[in-house]
Each structure stands twice: as structure tokens, then as C-alpha cells.
């Protein structure tokens, strides 16, 4: 750990473009959790998008430009934390974009080493053991792919969820199978994407849980949008909202 036990670490919240635009509540939930874990939270003003859309579309040059932007915005913080495994996965991939630019490579590697998905940071780095939250009902948790396979996020969200009062976790079948969001994939191949969502939703519904949680807003908007289209009563929240005791308002896609 970088920070000493006495001084609180200075943490940059990388809020992600989706949370910034669509669900600020997740950002505030992340701030509350980080502060509960003894961090000094700041929101770098120059942050925008991590560059994943161009990176995954083969547009290396635009991805590099956006990576430079993010690297600059996150300079000087002890840690960079995002409520998204997929955006942190992107930040961790920056070194691949600058293999032939030694100065930027060093900076990219430094940023990659300081970057963490929210639940991973809370549990693995901060050793957060107690959270105070209550969410009555049964939930099921979808393992978003980048967090799970690139970052190894699996036990952390479950360990934190276990502390939420009155919540029961019902594991779904194939929890590690992609929901079909996939960034631009969901609009490039909408039929395939919807079929994958339906497979996911079958598994969600089979648990009987009334709420589905995940750590990535992209997957959640996709799942929630499809749930609503199919008139399924399951609600969707970002896991940070439940952990921060901020899942009282409308769920994703619900009217206020």
C-alpha cells in the first residue's frame, strides 16, 4: 500500500462517462464508500472517457489521444478508482498503446499500477471490513467480463454484499457468461446482443431474485433495458448503490 496508515490516501474517482451522463447516483455512492474506507476523494475535472470505444473498434490513434488525456487527468493521485471493471481494464491496458513511446509507457505503467475497480480497491487495498447498508430482498450478481477476467474481481463484491443487512444473494447459473453488452457490439449486432441478454435474463429470473446487481453500468443499462422490454419485474442497480445504502430511489431505467 502506498499510503501510510496515518495519512488518508488521495484517491481520484474516475467516474466513467456512462455514470457521469446517466447515473450520477453511482458516482456519489462510490464517493461515500471510498470516504468510509478512509480515503480523501477528489474528482479530477479533466477526466472524460477512458478511450475504450476507439480501442475496441481498432481505432488506435484516437484511443491513444484519449489515453493521454486520462493519464494527464489522473496524474499525482495515490490511486485512481472507478465503479467499473471495464474502464479500469482499459486503464490497465494503456501500456499496450504506448509500447514504442518510452516516456508515456512509463507513465501508463504507473497509472495502471495505481488503478482499481471500486470493490477490488475497497477490499484488497483498503481492507474495508464493515459497511453499513440495508437492502431488503434477494439479489443476484452478474460478473461483468473485464472485471472478472482481466482484473480478478469475483470474491470482493460478494464479500461486501454479505455485509448488507436484509439482503440475500442468490447466485445465478452462468454468472460469468457475458450479458451481450460489449460496448459498441450492442448496437453493431443488436440481434445477437439481445439474444445474449435473454440468456442472461433467463438465468437471472430462474434465481427468483428481485434485483440484479453488477459492477458495470454498461452491462446494467443493457440488462435493465431488455428486462423492461420483456416486462420482467426484476430491478437493476449498480452494486455501489446497494453497498453505499443509496439504492432507495428509482432503479436503472425506472421512472422517478
Amino acid at each position, binding site marked *: 500500500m502506498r499510503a501510510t496508515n496515518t495519512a488518508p490516501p488521495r484517491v481520484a474517482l474516475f467516474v466513467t462517462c456512462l455514470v457521469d451522463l446517466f447515473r*450520477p447516483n453511482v458516482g456519489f455512492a462510490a464517493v461515500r464508500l471510498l470516504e468510509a474506507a478512509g480515503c480523501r476523494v477528489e474528482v479530477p475535472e479533466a477526466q472524460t472517457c477512458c478511450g475504450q470505444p476507439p480501442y475496441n473498434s481498432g481505432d*488506435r490513434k*484516437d484511443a491513444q489521444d*484519449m489515453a493521454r488525456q486520462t493519464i494527464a487527468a489522473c496524474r499525482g493521485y495515490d490511486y485512481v478508482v472507478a465503479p467499473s471493471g471495464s474502464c479500469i481494464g482499459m486503464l490497465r491496458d494503456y501500456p499496450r498503446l504506448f509500447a514504442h513511446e518510452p516516456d508515456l509507457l512509463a507513465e501508463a505503467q504507473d497509472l495502471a499500477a495505481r488503478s482499481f475497480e471500486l470493490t477490488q480497491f475497497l477490499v484488497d487495498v483498503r481492507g474495508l471490513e464493515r459497511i453499513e447498508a440495508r437492502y431488503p430482498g434477494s439479489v443476484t450478481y452478474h460478473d461483468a467480463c473485464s472485471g472478472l477476467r482481466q482484473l480478478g474481481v469475483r470474491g470482493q463484491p460478494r464479500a461486501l454484499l454479505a455485509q448488507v443487512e436484509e439482503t440475500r444473494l442468490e447466485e445465478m447459473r452462468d454468472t460469468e457468461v*457475458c450479458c451481450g453488452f460489449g460496448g459498441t457490439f450492442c*448496437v453493431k449486432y443488436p440481434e445477437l446482443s439481445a*439474444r445474449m441478454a435473454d440468456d442472461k435474463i433467463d438465468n437471472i429470473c430462474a434465481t427468483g431474485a428481485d434485483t440484479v446487481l453488477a459492477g458495470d453500468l454498461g452491462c446494467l443499462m443493457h440488462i435493465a433495458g431488455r428486462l423492461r422490454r420483456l416486462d420482467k419485474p426484476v430491478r437493476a442497480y449498480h452494486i455501489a448503490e446497494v453497498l453505499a445504502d443509496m439504492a432507495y430511489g428509482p432503479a436503472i431505467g425506472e421512472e422517478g
Partner: protein
Amino acid sequence: MDSRAHLFRQQASAALRDVELQQALHKARGGFVDKRAAAVREFGDFEALRERGQQIKQHTLRHLDSYLERFEAEVQGQGGQVHWAEDADSARDIIVDICRRAGARSVIKGKTMAGEEIGLNPALEAEFETVESDLGEYIIQLAKEPPSHIIAPAVHKTRAQITRLFDTHHGGQGQGEIREAPALVAEARRVLREKFLAADVGITGANFLVAETGSAVLVTNEGNGDLSLTLPRVHIVLAGIEKLVPNLDDCATLLRLLSRSATGQELTAYTTFVTGARRPQDPDGPEEYHVVLLDNGRSTMLGNEFHDMLRCIRCGACLNHCPVYSAIGGHAYGWVYPGPMGAVLTPQFVGLDEARDLPNACTLNGRCQSVCPVRIPLPELLRKLRERQFTQRIVDPKTRWGLHLWRYLATRPRLYRRATRLAVRFLNRIHGRGSARRLPLAGAWSASRDFPLPQGDTFQARWRKERKHG
């Protein structure tokens, strides 16, 4: 085989609506995955085995030239002939020529994906009675279809469809009602037994080629490989040059990986080492033995950024664990190799433009890489293909300009903050809160999903406000 990869979208769409195909895929889905998982648990340190498998293949590919020469010398030393085929045409010519010179009338084939790759069957069928001996391959040969899975070629067929096929082709043997699997297998066995006995030439693929012994290694669960190579007078092995392994120990390591990753077996029912033609003291075996080593673009891959793909041992685990493959099956991919490995390989063979959808029809979820026995970074290779497409302008202008615009905004934070606030306000003004049923300009999303609308003002704006006043 002619490519239909450019029709991916239509084919995928049709596959999603094909009721019988969906039944077959649904039935197959869990089986492979659960069996592999059980075999991996049972094994213990499977990660160490994967690591070793990767190393063996990497080492072999680095020294491929010398291992190929060693293999050739060993085969020749045992009375076999080695043929080098630069491309699909020359491989077909070599094989047809061997059959002609042997005066063949009928040819029996074991399963070979390299054979599919070079379009071997049509070339053989034009001159010889040609029969597939692997049950799955036999079924799709009757159906006049290509394989839809690299180890389970007829996985897309239901029992009802197979019964109908057999009734049509085995004349009168069927009673018309859907038969159980054992009855279908027995029926195929009866028909195939005659074909084995009549065949002049047997053609098989190879799972591995062992340099130090000159052996071709074949794994099957039906024993058809053994019959294809012991009964006919002439045996031809067709294999890609990447199938080389240095020695028997390395081969054993890869066999452990292959069977567990493919079918969840510790070992397949038959593992056959073929080493040369029949020697005087041998009880059986072919009089003539040929190995056709196929390049067909592999040496180009050896030197480019896709060389990791040459490690592939064709186990099919990436297909079985791919949610896209599970949804549409193999035929939608439009060429020989489907699923994640196919999405990387097909563009190498048929071109990036022809196969333009394949690298993109993937969420980069990485499940394939996590089960690959030789740890091929499939998502990374797919991303590299996307980069090539982008550079070669195979990406449509709308996407290109959309990405450029997004970058333009994202690298100008002040403008970005203003634009995002405006977008949020606009969406809320037009559609309110909650979700939108229809969204102009975002039909690709809203055709199948409601669109969750912003909660009102951006996080960044609210945060600044709150911190200023709080």
C-alpha cells in the same frame, strides 16, 4: 471451401430464428462446458499444464524449420513419403494424384479440418467414391453441409434430422420414427463397415506430428481413424505444418490438454500413433504411406502479429465457451473454422474484407482465452484484426467519424462537460425520466431494449455544485 463469411449478418440472423438449430445448440451448450470444468477440477494444477502446453508450442514454432526437416527425415526413413503443399490447390492435386496412381476407386476419410480448409471432398468426389467415416462427418456428408464445429461437426443436427437423413440415404432401413442415438450409431456402423473394407485409400488428419519419431498422432472416440489407416492399401495423412511437436513427452502433455479441453475426457477412447508404412513383421497397415504437409498461409502467420494463433490445437473449447457461437452455431461464420479461433483464422485465409464481421461479432469478454489450453490471447488478436480493418478503411465511415467526434470531445474536457450537460438536458426534455421506448438515431439499441434515461444533470456538474455549497 468457398467462403460465405461476408454473409455473416444474414446467416447469424437466420440461425437465431432456426428452431431446430436452436434446439440442437441448446442441448449441446452446457455439456461441453460442464465436462471440461469437471476434468480440470479433477486434474489439479491445470494452469501449470496450460503453461507447459503454451511453452511447448512456442518453442516448436520458433524452431519449426528444423523440426519439420527432422520429421520429414524420420518419415522417409520409415518408408513413407512427405509432400509439401504450399496452398490448397497444390494439396488437393497431390492427394488426388496419389489416389489416381494407386488406381483407387473408393476413398475412406477420417475427420480432417485441414481437408475442409483445402476443399478436399469435392475434388475427391469428382473421381472416387468418397465416404466420411467419423459419425458426425458422415452425417453432414449425407446432408451436404460443412462441419459446424471443429470437433463435433454435426452438433447442429437434432436426432430427428439425423433419423430423416438416414432414412433417405440408407434406403428402407428406417421405420420413419425418431430413433435413439444407439440405434442410429449401429445403423451408421453397419453401412460404414462395408465402406471401410472396400476402400483403396484412407485419408486422415493428424492432431500432432512428432518430429523425433516421425509419427502422426490421431485421437478419436470412434476408432474410425484406426480403420481408415489399417484397412486400405494406401494411407494419406494431411496436416498443417503447425501440428509439429518435438517429441513424445511433449506430445503426451498436449494430449492431456487436448482431451480435457475438448470433451472433458482424460484421454480419448483411441489415441493412435502412425509411424510409416507396414513393415514386414507388422500384422496390418498400409503398403504406401504419405504425409502431406500443408502451409496454406501458415508460414506467413509465423512471421506476423498473429503467430500466437499457430499454437491452436483445435480442441474447440473456445467455441464451446463463446456466447456468440452458442447462440448461432458454426455455419453462420461462413467458412471452415467457426467461433473465436475461426474469427481469428478465417480473415487470414479469405481476407479481412470478405470476413469483415468476424473480428467484430464478439464482445471481447475473454471467456475463450480463459479456457484455451495453450493460452492464445484470442481477444487481443481480434482487436488487432480490428486495427487492421480500421487502418485499411474497411470500417464504415459513420463509425469512423463517430469515433473521431467522440475523441474530439473527450480530449477537450471543458467542451466535453458542456456537451454532456446539454445532451443530458436534451434527453430529459424530450423523453423525461425513466426509460425511452423508442429513441431516434439509436434504433439499433431501442429495437430490442428500452433506453434508460439520465437521472438529470451530469455527475461532474452536481459534484462541483455540491462541493461548492457543501
